[in-house]
């Protein structure tokens, strides 16, 4: 059942339309990521849900109730900020209990809930410390506990991992997801990091220039991108120009070889997308074998990323590292195997 509805949401700052006709329905307990580059409008959408920005038009409803005219402090929506935003004058326990104190909750109940929240984030002994005495990761955990303590209806996470170093980011994102699953709280997570969005979300909204380009599961977003932007923004994608030979059957000429895509195509030329991991070194059991010259070899540890030239078109592909097998050298001619089913037709 739909819990949070964003319908025809628009936001303009002066003459600039930052969010354009944004639509989204979120189920209760769902974890949704708003993914996109800086300036795409994802934070503005989040801030409109929180009540910090007023939509130029459109509807924001939680459980059927309109939120647009409600002040931020009356929405019962928890928010975690990129810069932690812990109150420097309050201890960790006082920070976590702040929302409950504002609500007028009895002190005994606050103490119990604070203890519960500190246990949840794995910092049960740090209640007496001040924010400046904590690391970045600990501060963000406390910010999460503070947002969850008053039992909000929706949790908003505004790039909460951006200020942390890589290792802590990975561990904290797993923790956040585990806590969200345990509490079953409806969550909207804003990020520009595709890996975070892919690993944490039930569904992802890919935003581009104020518009939701595609909404789907991480699997759908990665494997069947709806637009050229989504295809390029999420993951690494090779784009290859092919000549359409027969639009009805989807027969195209690709690097001197004819491939049938089994879908109707229009026009003389088509742009095809291919993920690096869909290309094999050597034809093996693949349908197609294309000959190319290696132009780049990047050793990344467990994976080796190579780039080959296929008749003027550049194609990146990955191969796993194996201690006994030497990767091809730059200038070497190799056969690259791929399957027609892995070729995506890239739309506008």
């Amino acid at each position: 059942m739909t819990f949070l509805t964003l319908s025809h949401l628009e936001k303009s700052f002066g003459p600039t339309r930052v969010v354009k006709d944004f639509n989204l329905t979120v189920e209760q307990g769902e974890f949704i990521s708003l993914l996109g580059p800086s300036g795409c409008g994802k934070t503005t959408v989040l801030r409109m849900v929180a009540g910090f920005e007023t939509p130029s038009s459109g509807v924001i409803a939680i459980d059927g109730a309109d939120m647009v005219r409600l002040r931020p402090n009356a929405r019962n929506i928890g928010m975690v900020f990129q810069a932690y935003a812990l109150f420097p004058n309050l201890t960790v326990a006082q920070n976590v209990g702040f929302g409950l104190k504002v609500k007028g909750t009895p002190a005994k109940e606050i103490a119990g809930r604070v203890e519960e929240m500190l246990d949840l984030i794995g910092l049960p002994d740090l209640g007496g410390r001040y924010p400046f005495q904590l690391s970045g990761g600990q501060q963000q955990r406390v910010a999460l506990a503070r947002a969850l303590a008053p039992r909000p209806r929706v949790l908003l996470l505004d790039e909460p991992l951006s200020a942390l170093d890589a290792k802590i980011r990975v561990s904290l994102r797993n923790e956040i997801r585990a806590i969200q699953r345990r509490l079953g709280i409806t969550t909207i997570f804003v990020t520009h990091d595709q890996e975070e969005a892919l690993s944490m979300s039930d569904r992802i909204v890919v935003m581009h220039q104020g518009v939701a380009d595609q909404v789907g599961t991480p699997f759908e977003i990665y494997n069947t991108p709806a637009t050229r932007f989504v295809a390029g923004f999420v993951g690494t994608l090779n784009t290859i120009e092919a000549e359409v030979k027969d639009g009805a059957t989807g027969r195209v000429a690709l690097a001197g070889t004819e491939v049938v895509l089994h879908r109707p195509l229009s026009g003389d030329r088509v742009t095809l997308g291919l993920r690096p991991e869909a290309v094999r070194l050597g034809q093996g059991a693949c349908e197609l074998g294309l000959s190319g010259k290696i132009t780049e070899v990047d050793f990344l540890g467990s994976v080796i990323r190579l780039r080959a030239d296929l008749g003027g078109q550049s194609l990146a592909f990955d191969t796993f590292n194996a201690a006994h097998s030497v990767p091809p050298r730059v200038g070497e001619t190799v056969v690259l195997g791929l399957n027609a089913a892995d070729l995506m037709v890239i739309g506008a």
Partner: protein
Amino acid sequence: MKRAAAWAILLLGMAYFILPLIGMVEFSLSMKRGIYSLEAYRVVLADPRFRETFTFSVVMALLTIVVGMAIVVPTAFWVRLKMPGLRPYVEFVTLLPLVIPAIVIVFGYIRLYNTSSALPLTGTIFGTNLLLVFGYVTLSLPYMYRAVDTGLRTIDVATLTEAAQSLGAGWVTILARVILPNVLVSVLSGAFVTFAIVMGEFTMAALLNRPAFGPYLQLMGANRAYEPFALATIAFVITWACMGLIQLVTRFSKHDKAAR
């Protein structure tokens, strides 16, 4: 050589400031011929007018701080949060008391609020005292506003406000429990400077005919030899005590030790 020159300049500067102070204190202790004594201080402290005017000025200073902070803290907060474009203009307005002499302000007050005006504040003692407090608030505005604004600059006002709002806090709670405690050191700095200014202020109190410490200092200076120097020393000690308190408050602010 450079080091020696620096020391020489420093010592010269110190002598320029400290020698007159030594002279003042030395003279205040010389009331009895041939020996140093606290006689001038005893005479001053025994004077009922000293206690009366000193108490009056302390009360006025405290009221000025309360009224001033009640105006300045929400204003500076709001300007920083919602109207950052207005900051230069607000700063300009707060700096005006530095270029407009107190005598101009007080004559303006007298003209606007005299007994034949629509709001005859000067007609009663309470009204005149109220006018004096507002005058003092105006005089201390440059110091108060700058202190509070500097304090607000050290915290992320917008994010802290939004964090508090998302936790259900209204504006009063945000100001009282989030913003004010985090700029308390700055607020107290402004308060102590205000206290020092009000304790020595002469023009407004004299022209509004109120029994403040400033006019009393002037009166003593015109009629006595040693007592004015004792009073000046007392006023000087009060000022420096205020400065010391600013340092003390900064040092003992627990949550303020974070690297910013």
